[in-house]
Structure formats: structure tokens, C-alpha cells
């Protein structure tokens, strides 16, 4: 990491740009690079409305991803080194669903650029359409089904993703001037050539993987052998297919788990998933597998079907041989079988869930090139197909993945389209800022532990009977508390080396022993816990925050004081680490008259400069509501705060103002009522000054 100087900071303009110097792993590993740390930080302060905007800035399918994302952010969360990863997805779920479609800002731009057609209203197509609209194009999305949303709308079972949740995302995207035309299948109802002649300057193909793979084995054509997408789509469109009571799902991936769990919900008495893999080789996520098992799904491992046995026109069993290996030495899929070991697995219904493949029907009559394996030819560097005005994105051209990856692909394609239509060469910059490093174990050991907030899951016995969501949304309190577990990685302190006087103060006040001072102070970003203590105490103002800035807070307080009108005014700075969500930013009726509450995640960054400014800006006094020992999220803050209050009191005394104007109380962890009482009492003392 380059060292920072005041000149460089000035050049960056906004100190928030500092966050671009190094990313937190959650952001880095998010396929759309949502600014996770920032929205979690806003959520930690109950600023839901701002949080959703930060989420949606990068992630159009915020609500869908809040439910179903495979969350690589969490898998890489540094909090795991302390106790457990932050439940990022669940916080996002709470924030987006609480705001709904209308609760997030819609940024309309003048759409005076060319019309662009998008084929397929899945995550990739909709994400591309949104970005094109934001760039001033006029996107129209053609979707063969009656609903927009792609696989999330037509195949992800409602017990994992309720339709109204998906609709929030679709509505929000459409509000940006994205037109969706459903019930039009390209290649059948219209061709690509038709779209061109209708005046679409570019076309984006985002048709996903719409066909289920099947096995060419005897009996596979029986009407009770369902290709998985047909099965799930029928269920999703309330046309649940008839199934028997004894179901075998062939496949061991997540899609197979969805099919098996859906079969359970349709009333089958026995559901088993048969797969080539042993338990620890299965491609399904562990949690999908264990939730399925809890709901009664059985597993038959290391078996490959050879035959669907039909007697008297009915399926009676699946014959399956032993799998001797699944992968070769290089971990490539290359199964081998023992034909002498064949079992017969009884059943009356079979669901084939062994993978999906593209439906190339959209190509009808079009000369677009295909490769030797029949796949659409496309250049991953530009997203262009063999026709430079026709682009492709999403799962039709990438490996099967996730909703968020499809969004990322769509966004990248939109950039390609924009460059193409602007007559520029298509060069897509994929370089990312470096990711912040791992946290050393001895630093992790100093971080106070706080267990992950659990999501309430319905009992397996109950949830297997209906299609309602299997788990509950966080409450506001839980969402906020969970967000407060975030350590703000990479949002900590940065030294302006030209201002540092090597005074050692940062080293002395840091509760985590992070700064190292040689010629100047250096703060290793991968270790800094972002408490901000050094920022406030540095005598040279040589340390800046990469995330929320103490100076920003000064401005906010000044604006609020100016807006508060005449009459007595007291500013109460409150450490909100322990307070319930409802108390944060206390609502008008709850607020105490004449008291302006400034809620902070910790009082660690509340310095004398901020408080002095508040007095200068018209506050009659200040109440600092801190916590008792251990009542702040960071060590030593309580002692430090007491000293800051003493310093400010002395400063007021020096200029003939009553030091009693500054009050420090320690009840941040005793609930709202105690806090109100303490503020009232302190305000009384201030009034007497």
C-alpha cells in the first residue's frame, strides 16, 4: 500500500475515496462488488434507507440475493477469525425487504440514447437492462415466460424465495425505465432479425440455461420422469405436477435439493436423492443438504442410474450401478462404474436433476456462430457474439453459477454495449483495488467476542408441510446488532505521513497495539480495528479515517443545531452499541425536548474538537452517554472518554464558561428509559449553568 500524504488526500477529494485504496474482503469477493462494509455500517446505525441505496448501487437483485445468495462475502468475512462471519446476507435481507421496492432511491436519467433489446428477463438480462437505462439507453427485455425474473421466478422454490420478494427487485429495476415484455419467445414469436429491423441498435442475449439435461437410459421418456426445470417451473407457476408417493431425484447438486424438498412439500411419503458422489463429494452446499435431510430427504450415494424400470406402464424402480470413482486424479469429473454391482431402488416418480443446458431456440433463422459443442460463440473480453451488435451474458455463456454472478455478467455486458454504441473499442477494465490482508491471530484475540445472531428457522416437521419461507427475517434489533459485529475492515486509520511528527500518541492510545512508529507512524490496515481512537487523539491531525469521518460528524451536528431553531439546546452523544434499533435516531415523539441526540456506534471517535464545535455552534451543553466498563465495543474507550470530557470542561473553565455544561453519564447499556432519565437529569444540571 502506498503511503498517504495530505496532498494525495486533497487530490482524492473525498476522504471516502480512501476506501478505494484497499477493499474489504466482503466487497472484493462479492461478484458485483457491492460496498458491503459501507451498507453494513449504515445498518449498524439503523440507517436502513441509506443502506438499501448502497446495496442497490451495485446489486439490482438485492431482495432476491438477501434470500438466496451463496454469499461469498460471508465466506471471506474476516470476523470469522474472531468468532463467526457477519451474517451479511441476513442483514441485506432485512434491509431490502424492510424498504421494499419503493423504499430505495430510483435514479432516473434522461434516456435519449438508442433502444437496446435484451432477450431473457433473468438476473443477467435485467441487470444489463438496468445499467443500460442508467447509461441513457432505452432497454426492452423480452421474456418467454409470463413473469420476469428468470430462474428465481420460475424455478427457485417459494419456500426459499417468496414471489413478492422477487417482485420488489423487478419493480425497482423497471422503475428506471426498463420495459419488460413477457410472453414473447425469441426464435418463435419473433426472431433476432425482427428485433434488428424493429430498430434495436444492439441485442443482449441472456437466455440462461433453460433446459434440463436428461440421461439417455431406458425408461427416461416415461411421463413420471420429470426434467427438473419442468418440474420446478410447474410448481412455481401453481401447476404442480402429479407425483407419486415414492420419489427418486437423480442428482446431488443444489437444484436436486430444491427438487427433493419440493417433492416432500407436494406430499410424497418417501423422497430420496441418488447421486454419483459420496456425501463429502456432493456439489450441493452443506446447508442445503442438511436442511433437506432434516425435512426427511434420504440420500443414496455413489450410484449411477442405468435403467428406469417400468412395469405395467408404471415406474417401479431405478436400477443403479456402483460408482467406483467420480473424479480423476486431477479432480476432473470422470466417473467409473462397477457394472457387476447393480441395485434396484424402488420408486414411482423420477426427477432428473443432473444439470441444465442452454435452449438455443432463440437462434432460429439467425446466422450467429456456434462452437463445435453447439454453444453460442462469444468473446469473453467484449461479450460480443459473431455479430458485433449482438452481445451475450449470464449463464448461457458462463459456467452455471449464481444470481449475483449472473448480475455481474449482465453489468459487464452493458458496459460493452455502451462502448460499442459509442463507437469506442470495447475494453472492459476488470482490475480491482487490492484486498485487505488477513488479520493476525493476536490482533483477533483482542477483539471482543460477539456471537452471530441466529436466524429463526421453522422446525423441519412443520416447514416440510407448506411452501412458506423456512426461516424468519431478522428483527430490526437483530439486524442492527448483527451489523454492529462488522469490524469495518479497511475502514480504519490512515496516516498522512507528511504531517506525522512521530510523537507516539497513536501507538500509546491504540487499544489493539497496531501503530508502529519509526520515522513516521504506520498503521497496518489489515490489523487496524477502525476504532478511531488514534484519529481523535493525534496532536498533528495526521490520521484520517477511511470510513466515517469525525469531521463529517462535526458538520452534521452543526447542521442539526442550525436547524433546531430557538430555545435551549443540548447535544447528547450516545454510544448506541447496546441500544435497540428503535432507540437509534430516536423518533420525534420519543425525543426529549431541546435535546439533539447524536447516535454513534461507539464514542471512540468522539473527540474534544467535535464537542467544542457543538458548543460553538449553539449547544448550551453536552451530555455524553457512554457505557460502563466493557460497555463500549472497544477496550479503553471509557477511560479515554472521561479524560476528553475533563479536558473540555477545563477548556470551558478557562474561558469563564461553567464546566458543568459538559456531562458524562455511563448508562448506554441500561436501556432507553435509564438513558432518558440520565439525559433529563444531566440536562437539568446544564440548564442551571
Amino acid at each position, binding site marked *: 500500500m502506498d503511503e498517504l500524504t495530505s496532498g494525495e488526500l486533497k487530490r482524492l477529494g473525498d476522504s471516502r475515496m480512501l476506501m478505494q485504496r484497499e477493499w474489504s474482503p466482503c466487497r472484493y469477493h462479492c461478484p458485483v462488488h457491492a460496498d458491503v462494509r459501507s451498507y453494513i455500517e449504515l445498518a449498524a446505525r439503523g440507517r436502513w434507507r441509506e443502506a438499501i441505496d448502497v446495496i442497490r448501487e451495485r446489486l439490482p437483485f438485492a431482495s432476491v440475493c438477501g434470500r438466496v445468495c451463496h454469499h461469498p462475502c460471508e465466506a471471506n468475512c474476516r470476523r470469522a477469525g474472531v468468532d463467526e462471519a457477519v451474517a451479511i446476507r441476513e442483514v441485506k435481507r432485512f434491509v431490502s425487504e424492510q424498504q421494499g421496492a419503493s423504499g430505495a432511491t430510483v435514479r432516473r436519467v434522461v434516456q435519449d440514447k438508442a433502444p437496446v433489446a435484451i432477450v431473457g428477463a433473468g438476473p443477467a438480462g435485467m441487470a444489463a437492462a438496468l445499467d443500460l437505462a442508467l447509461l441513457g439507453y432505452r432497454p426492452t427485455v423480452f421474456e418467454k415466460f409470463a413473469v420476469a425474473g428468470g430462474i428465481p421466478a420460475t424455478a427457485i422454490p417459494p419456500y426459499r424465495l417468496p414471489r413478492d420478494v422477487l417482485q420488489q427487485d423487478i419493480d425497482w429495476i423497471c422503475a428506471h425505465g426498463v420495459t419488460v415484455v413477457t410472453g414473447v419467445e425469441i426464435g418463435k414469436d419473433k426472431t433476432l432479425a425482427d428485433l434488428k429491423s424493429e430498430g434495436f441498435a444492439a441485442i443482449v442475449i441472456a437466455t440462461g440455461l433453460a433446459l434440463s439435461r436428461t440421461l439417455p437410459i431406458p425408461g427416461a421418456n416415461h411421463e413420471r420422469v420429470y426434467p427438473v426445470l419442468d418440474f420446478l417451473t410447474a410448481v412455481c407457476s401453481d401447476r404442480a405436477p402429479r407425483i407419486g408417493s415414492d420419489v427418486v431425484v437423480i442428482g446431488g447438486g443444489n437444484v436436486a435439493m430444491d427438487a427433493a424438498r419440493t417433492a416432500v412439500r407436494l406430499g410424497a411419503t418417501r423422497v430420496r436423492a441418488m447421486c454419483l458422489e459420496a456425501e463429502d463429494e456432493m456439489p450441493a452446499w452443506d446447508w442445503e443438504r442438511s436442511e433437506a435431510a432434516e425435512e426427511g430427504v434420504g440420500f443414496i450415494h455413489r450410484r449411477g442410474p442405468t435403467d428406469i424400470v417400468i412395469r405395467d406402464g408404471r415406474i417401479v424402480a431405478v436400477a443403479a450401478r456402483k460408482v467406483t470413482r467420480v473424479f480423476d486424479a486431477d479432480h476432473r469429473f470422470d466417473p467409473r462404474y462397477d457394472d457387476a454391482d447393480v441395485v434396484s431402488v424402488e420408486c414411482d416418480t423420477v426427477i432428473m436433476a443432473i444439470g441444465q443446458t442452454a435452449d438455443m431456440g432463440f437462434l432460429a433463422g439467425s446466422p450467429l456462430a456456434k462452437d463445435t459443442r453447439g454453444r453460442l460463440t462469444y468473446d469473453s473480453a467484449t461479450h460480443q457474439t459473431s455479430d458485433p451488435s449482438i452481445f451475450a451474458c449470464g449463464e448461457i455463456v458462463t459456467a452455471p453459477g449464481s444470481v449475483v454472478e449472473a448480475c455481474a455478467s449482465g453489468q459487464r455486458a452493458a458496459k460493452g454495449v455502451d462502448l460499442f454504441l459509442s463507437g469506442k473499442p470495447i475494453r472492459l477494465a476488470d482490475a480491482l483495488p487490492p484486498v485487505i490482508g488477513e488479520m493476525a491471530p493476536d490482533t483477533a484475540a483482542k477483539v471482543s467476542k460477539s456471537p452471530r445472531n441466529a436466524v429463526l428457522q421453522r422446525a423441519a416437521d412443520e416447514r416440510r408441510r407448506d411452501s412458506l419461507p423456512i426461516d424468519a427475517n431478522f428483527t430490526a434489533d437483530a439486524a442492527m446488532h448483527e451489523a454492529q459485529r462488522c469490524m469495518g475492515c479497511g475502514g480504519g486509520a490512515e496516516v498522512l505521513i507528511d504531517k506525522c*511528527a512521530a510523537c507516539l500518541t497513536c501507538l*500509546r492510545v491504540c487499544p489493539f497495539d497496531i501503530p508502529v512508529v519509526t520515522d513516521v507512524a504506520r498503521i497496518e490496515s489489515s490489523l487496524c480495528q477502525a476504532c478511531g481512537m488514534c484519529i481523535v487523539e493525534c*496532536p*498533528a*491531525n495526521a490520521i484520517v479515517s477511511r470510513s466515517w469521518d469525525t469531521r463529517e460528524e462535526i458538520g452534521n451536528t452543526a447542521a442539526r443545531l442550525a436547524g433546531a431553531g430557538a430555545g435551549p439546546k443540548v447535544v447528547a452523544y450516545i454510544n448506541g452499541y447496546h441500544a435497540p434499533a428503535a432507540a437509534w435516531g430516536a423518533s420525534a415523539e420519543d425525543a426529549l425536548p431541546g435535546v439533539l441526540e447524536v447516535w454513534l456506534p461507539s464514542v471512540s471517535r468522539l473527540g474534544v*474538537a467535535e464537542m467544542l464545535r457543538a458548543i*460553538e455552534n449553539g449547544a448550551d451543553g453536552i451530555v455524553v452517554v457512554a457505557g460502563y466498563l466493557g460497555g463500549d465495543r472497544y477496550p479503553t474507550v471509557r477511560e479515554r472518554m472521561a479524560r476528553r470530557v475533563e479536558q473540555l470542561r477545563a477548556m470551558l473553565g478557562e474561558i469563564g464558561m461553567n464546566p458543568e455544561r459538559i456531562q458524562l453519564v455511563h448508562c448506554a447499556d441500561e436501556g432507553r428509559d435509564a438513558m432518558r432519565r440520565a439525559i433529563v437529569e444531566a440536562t437539568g444540571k446544564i440548564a442551571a449553568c
Partner: protein
Amino acid sequence: MIVAERKPMDEIVAMLAPHRKVLVLGCGGCVTVCLTGGEKQAELLAGQLRLAARQAGRTLEAAFDCITRQCEREFFDNLTEDPRTYDAVLSIACGAGVQYMSELYPEVPILPGMNTTFLASNVAGGVWEEYCRGCGDCVLAWTGGICPITQCSKSLINGTCGGTNNGKCEVNPEMECGWLRIYERLKALGQLDNYRTLRAARDHRKDRGGGVRRLVLKDMAESQESGNE
């Protein structure tokens, strides 16, 4: 390093009374390190002065700025504020900085916000103690590394006076007798001979008696005319 303490507020307020627009200027050197005169202190002091003026029913424009060292000409190029646009500058550097700045800005009153106190070492977080008087003729080689000029209230160079009381100084009973400390240390070092040797009277021209002291490094020195233009 040099330690300086902020002057009493009343004195500062009185000093600034004739002025309406002042710049509080911190120094990024010694006084930042001893936490009394850096940018943060300049910021706080400016705020405090504005409030004080308001209390007194006056208006005072007080801004703050800070440069790396106020005792070097080049660093003044880095000022963000132009001192000439202020009625006065309240410098919170040591006295060297204040005077040097006065020379650079003859048209602007440069006022001292600090009392420059001593040459110090940092004995604990937030605590500085005087260790050196800058006497110009260092004796530490034969005093066991303890400075009698500083640590003895009378700055004697030939051992304890008769006023040592149970190890304390007769001038200041709070203070340990410097010479007793020197004795103990020399004893521990096996160098009591140094204690027994009579030292000649000191040459006070090297100290304050010879007027302003200068250090001119022949190999580096520029002509002062060009240096100060």
C-alpha cells in the same frame, strides 16, 4: 526536544484584545510531540478563543493552520493561510518559532501562545521532564550521565553543597539532590575518582554569557544574506 506549555488563557485573551482576525499557528515539531502546540491544539485553541470572544460579547475570527517546523524558512511555503491577511498570528511553537516567524513576516504581529520551558525527555506517556539546559559545555562524561547543571538547583559542578537533606534538595524539597544521584551513580560505575577531581570554573561564554550563540557549519553554510532574503 523542546517543551512548551500553553500560556494562561487570560494572558492570551489580553494579548489578542486589539485584534479581530487572528491565525492560530501550530508547529509540527517539538510542540506537536509534547502535545501542546500541534495542529490539533491550534484547532482547539482557535475554537476556544472564538467562544471566549463570544462570551465577552466580541466577535473574533480565529482560524488555524500548522506547518512542519516554524524554525525553518522553507516550511512557511506550505502555509494554507496567508499570515498577511490576519491582524495577528498567535504562534504556538516555541519561542524560536515565534521569533523566526516575526522576522519572516515583519508586517504582522506574531504573538507567543506558549511559554517555552525546557529541553526534555519523555519519561512516561504525557509526562516530560527537563534533562538539559543547553549550557554549551557538556559535563555528562564525568558526572555519571546525570546533568548537574539541570539536576542541581545551584548548577554546581563540584559536588554536593551542604544542604542535602536526606537526599532532597534544600532549595526544593520535592526535588532529589542531583549531586547525590551523581555520587550514587559514579559509585555504581566504579568511577568515584571523577567525583574527587576538582573541576575548574565554567566558561559562561559558552552558556548564556556570550550573547546569541550560533552554529555555522562551514561545509554546509550558505551566506546568510541569500538564506534570509
